[in-house]
């Protein structure tokens, strides 16, 4: 018997990252004891090669792997975004790892494997493959969250993330099982076709499955009431990993959410839209009010990440159609801003400490003018002030909600953005209007981290001034989902 021929070409970007991960691991094994393998250059090379592969795949028009893994415009868009996030995180990492004494070979391997999981998550057109990808991403991040062996907060973050993550995976799997029971298939297309002609016999089952899927994804994107892990995990995890979580995991989870709900469950839109809308409202409100009360910058950004999940969900309500492209566009803007925000804190780390309070960043503008300016750009974009990516992105998100007839969601979103200005701009005020306290305790910005931060700031400004190219691409990607 000859084995069936499988065309693995469409999975090349993910395969390149996986092989690079293994190469970094082996390189560590062959490095003398006490020294670190050149993990960062290896990873950078792998990520750039994967980016080239994505470009070549796009030129070839994508592809399909046995019906389980599809590379269409939608997944290519996310491929580029996720690999970009990976590049920035790897650029930020070496100096941070040295400053905090956690420079280990496995770090880059686990980061690359979690990126492989993210690529799978946005490309899988079959629920079981999707679940395996989700677990690859999550398990790597559970371990990475606990990388600071000496810090109790990091251990707490790993345990908390692991337990809530495993719990949410259970919900997701239960939902997948019920959808399989209702439709007899795990392929998104087949599920969609089966549910389009629903008998009363399976309608309740499919609705229940949809609800459980929503709970599972709700955990992963940190939407209220499934957000309670986020502040502790974001605070305890190494800051570069927090950046990866807030930019990469959120993008990949929203990608999977859009694909599953857009391709398999459009027939049930009438029952999941109100639920998503309710999640969006409580997430926007609780996330923003929670952020107001934080004095720790990492926790503040964590609650801000919760709040942004709410803004994004407000546009998911308007999916399929204009809502999808709004979410896709905003995910790029949001990723750049969060990589920048957490990256700026990581870049200043010195001797295991990093700036975490307003006092720590007071007067930063006089000591690190370039870094303070970049951080100000990110914070202004998070608020949604014009001429930043955040403004354009939020505009599209809320317009999508209004067009779909959910004006109240847009109103709440705008009101909450006004509230958010207080806690974001408080940091800018501390950097520019206050005198620095004490001696300069922070590291000079290392060149690679400077490059990463400059890139993020450039993306934020470019998207704010000239959003058309990315928007066109997002529109193309959204269309391939239909």
């Amino acid at each position, binding site marked *: 018997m000859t084995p069936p021929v*499988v065309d693995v070409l469409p999975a090349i970007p993910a395969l390149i990252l996986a092989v690079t991960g293994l190469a970094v691991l082996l390189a560590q094994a062959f490095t003398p004891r006490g020294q670190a393998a050149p993990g960062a250059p290896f990873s950078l090379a792998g990520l750039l090669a994967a980016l080239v592969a994505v470009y070549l795949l796009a030129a070839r028009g994508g592809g399909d*792997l046995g019906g389980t893994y599809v590379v269409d415009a939608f997944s290519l868009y996310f491929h580029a975004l996720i690999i970009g996030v990976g590049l920035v995180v790897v650029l930020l990492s070496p100096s941070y790892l040295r400053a905090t004494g956690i420079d280990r070979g*496995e770090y880059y391997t*686990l980061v690359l494997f979690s990126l492989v999981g993210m690529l799978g998550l946005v490309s899988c057109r079959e629920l079981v493959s999707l679940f*395996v990808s989700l677990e690859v991403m999550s398990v790597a991040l559970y371990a990475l969250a606990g990388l600071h*062996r000496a810090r109790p907060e990091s251990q707490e973050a790993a345990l908390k993330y692991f337990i809530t993550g495993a719990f949410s995976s259970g919900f997701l799997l239960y939902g997948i099982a019920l959808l399989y*029971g209702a439709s*007899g298939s795990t392929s998104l297309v087949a599920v969609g076709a089966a549910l389009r002609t629903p008998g009363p016999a399976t309608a309740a089952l499919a609705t229940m499955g949809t609800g459980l899927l929503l709970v599972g994804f709700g955990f992963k994107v940190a939407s209220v009431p499934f957000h309670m892990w986020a502040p502790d995990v974001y605070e305890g995890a190494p800051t570069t990993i927090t950046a990866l979580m807030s930019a990469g995991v959120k993008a990949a989870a929203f990608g999977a959410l859009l694909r599953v709900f857009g391709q398999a469950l459009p027939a049930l839109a009438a029952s999941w839209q109100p639920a998503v809308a309710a999640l969006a409202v409580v997430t926007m409100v609780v996330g923003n009010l929670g952020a107001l009360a934080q004095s720790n910058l990492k926790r503040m950004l964590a609650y801000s990440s919760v709040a942004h999940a709410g803004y994004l969900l407000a546009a998911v309500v308007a999916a399929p159609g204009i809502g999808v492209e709004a979410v896709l566009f905003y995910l790029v803007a949001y990723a750049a801003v969060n990589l920048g925000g957490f990256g700026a804190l990581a870049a200043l780390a010195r001797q295991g400490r990093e700036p975490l309070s307003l006092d720590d960043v007071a007067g930063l503008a006089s000591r690190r003018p370039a870094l303070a300016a970049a951080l100000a750009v990110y914070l202004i974009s998070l608020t949604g002030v014009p001429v930043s990516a955040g403004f354009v992105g939020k505009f599209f998100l809320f317009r999508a909600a209004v067009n779909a007839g959910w004006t109240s969601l847009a109103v709440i979103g705008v009101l909450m953005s006004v509230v958010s200005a207080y806690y974001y701009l408080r940091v800018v005020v501390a950097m520019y209007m206050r005198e620095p306290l004490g001696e300069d305790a922070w590291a000079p910005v290392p060149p690679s981290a400077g490059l990463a931060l400059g890139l993020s700031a450039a993306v934020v400004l470019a998207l704010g001034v000239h959003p058309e190219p990315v928007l066109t691409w997002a529109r193309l990607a959204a269309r391939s989902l239909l």
Partner: protein
Amino acid sequence: MNAEAAVFYVLAAITVGSAAVVVLARSLIYSAFALLFTFVGVAGLYLLLGADFLAATQLLIYVGGILVLLLFGVMLTHKLYDLDLRSEVTQFLPGVIVSIGLFAVLALTAWRTDWAGGDGRAPAATTREIGQLFMGRYLLPFEAASILLLVALMGAAMIVRRKRSA
């Protein structure tokens, strides 16, 4: 009630009953032994459905591997076997309400659904077909699962490693 249904109810009772013991037992060692019956009960359910490969895997991996490892872990860990496992109960009432509500909704859904049955015949040996699917249609998730195992191994090794005195 025919014989098949009778076998199903016996197996289901074993599975659910022993699972309850796993959760409720005060001693870890009782929980571990009760887990044996849960695993065997699930394997029996797989057999009843004609999933022979799955049943064999369930016995080999869960009973033969995971459970034995778990028992070794419990027995070799100092003082773990007579540890009182009850943790402090917080949020008792909300927890009860949520779990009873969720159970009611799930039970009602299961009850109301007109489950699609097969043609009543058990499939012929499934191993061959599963192997072909793993090497063909599901090649990618199959390979992704091996990455998942590697990641889990690395993560576990990283977390239990002794702290460096640096």
